[in-house]
């Protein structure tokens, strides 16, 4: 029983990390144009956050649209 609970926690942690891998890969490609130094500039940080928000927002809207189409 404890094992099952642990497995579930691990599994959801792993899914969370998988999502971060995917979002970071997508948004790093779009927002970090040139590597001019080791710092992430304020503009780049804003772009990264905007990219994440827009992606999640698109995801939500797509799911809503799909369920409307199914009706």
């Amino acid at each position, binding site marked *: 029983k404890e094992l099952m609970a642990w497995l579930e926690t691990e599994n959801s942690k792993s899914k969370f990390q998988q999502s971060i891998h995917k979002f970071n890969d997508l948004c790093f490609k779009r927002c970090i144009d040139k590597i001019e130094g080791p710092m992430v500039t304020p503009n780049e940080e804003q772009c990264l956050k905007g990219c994440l928000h827009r992606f999640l927002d698109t*995801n939500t809207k797509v799911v809503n649209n*799909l369920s409307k*189409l199914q009706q």
Partner: protein
Amino acid sequence: KLEIELAQANATELVNNLTENCFEKCPGGDDACIASCTQKYMVSWNIISQAYLGLVQNAKR
């Protein structure tokens, strides 16, 4: 139960592909664009699906 898992995997893949494609095609992120994009993607899915099914059945004859 396996049937549900397969259907779920299928739905997850559809939602992932839809999200990625509409993220690309609607850089503004507005509702109207995403609604049109979703609908176009599903119509495209039906076109491709019908055409592929036709080809597969033709090949079997």
